């Protein structure tokens, strides 16, 4: 049991780093996608709407299988980790974009018009007006998405990435200490997710105080 701890720490690193990279990329891409929607940039907006529907209405597991087992046949071989990050970002960016979109709509139109009247272009509006005001409203949704994505990383074990879930399965197969290793697995995810829950809670509370 003790000997398994380094393996768990290694797996914890895999889960947190792949999940973390995926969440950050989803966040950035989701923001850009929501901006394109907000400014109604033709054609691009339509394509991205299609993408959002595809991504939100299919499971991550089949997205990963398609990326990892399907795409190499088209001459696009992807490594396990690359496929995992692309898959998670494909899923996550759509969810993040939806959260950003909702929050952008809460920014009063008069703010946008004021920005335009002093000669701001779209990008200046985005970073000086829409992002700071929209972000406040978006925090609960973005936070929930981040937690959702971190939990989804457990699916990575299906493409044989040695994350927490996969390492546990291996260890159970080797030592038959089923209950002990399952408990370690549940605890490991709690160690990752509970601090995230706490941070989001604190961010939301701080924002309420500022709002008052």
């Amino acid at each position, binding site marked *: 049991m003790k000997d398994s701890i380094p393996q768990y720490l290694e797996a914890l690193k895999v889960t947190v780093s792949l999940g973390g990279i995926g969440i950050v990329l989803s966040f950035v891409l989701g923001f850009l996608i929501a901006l394109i929607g907000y400014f109604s940039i033709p054609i691009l907006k339509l394509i991205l709407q299609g993408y959002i*529907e595809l991504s939100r209405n299919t499971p991550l597991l*089949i997205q990963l299988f398609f990326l990892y087992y399907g795409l190499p046949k088209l001459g696009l071989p992807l490594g396990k980790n690359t496929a995992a990050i692309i898959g998670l970002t494909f899923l996550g960016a759509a969810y993040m974009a939806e959260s950003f979109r909702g929050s952008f709509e809460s920014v009063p139109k008069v703010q946008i018009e004021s920005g335009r009247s002093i000669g701001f272009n779209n990008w200046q509006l985005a970073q000086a007006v829409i992002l700071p005001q929209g972000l406040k409203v978006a925090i609960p949704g973005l936070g929930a998405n981040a937690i959702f994505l971190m939990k989804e990383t457990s699916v990575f074990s299906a493409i044989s990435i040695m994350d927490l879930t996969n390492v546990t399965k291996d260890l159970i197969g080797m030592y038959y200490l089923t209950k002990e290793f399952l408990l370690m*697995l549940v605890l490991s*995810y709690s160690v990752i997710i509970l601090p995230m829950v706490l941070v989001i809670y604190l961010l939301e509370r701080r924002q309420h105080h500022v709002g008052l």
Partner: protein
Amino acid sequence: MSGFDIFFDGNNLIRLFQGLLVVVKLSVISLILGLILGVVLGILRTTSFKVIRVVLKIYLEIFRVVPLLVLLFVFYYIVPELLNSEVSNQVVSISVFILWISAEMSDLVRSGIENVPVQQIEIGKSLGFNSWQQYYYILLPQGVIPVIPGVINLVTRVIKTTSLLMMIGVTEMIRVGTQIIENYTVKVPTASLWVYGLIFFLYFALCYHLSKLAAYVERRQVNG
């Protein structure tokens, strides 16, 4: 043979649709039982028994913190050990799904009931309703209707989550697809692209219409 022809070779297409039927069957059974249990738990979370409220809140948080795949593994390994007998993978899956759905549903029902205007309850009281009548005639009908879009979205999440069941050995659509691909690895190298592509599309076809329905119901509710 090109990749597309795989679907018409042998009974591959029929097998994939049988996999799809397993997805639908498992979803429907767990949804019916899970949603009913969820309504009961949701009502309990709005009553004045503090202990019950706290216990049920913790119950919900477990599903919010631990990935469902992990819970599936926990049940898959532990339940047969506890019962000291073999339990089929499908029964394990349905059990975990029922618990998960009931937790999510309990939160929807709770928020729905809590958002019923206070005056409605006061009117009920002034008519001499007891608390059972208040729930039956006022709180449930008014509390459940606003959360219908949320329930439909939960249905799509359940369908998408059935994809995890292949990991505990349930022969559902993705597992059938993987078996088919394995039969053709040498003959048709592009098999994985086509078969996983079709499964991707089938999941999309199932969930897309439900998502649109949820959005439609929500719009109608907002516009009165």
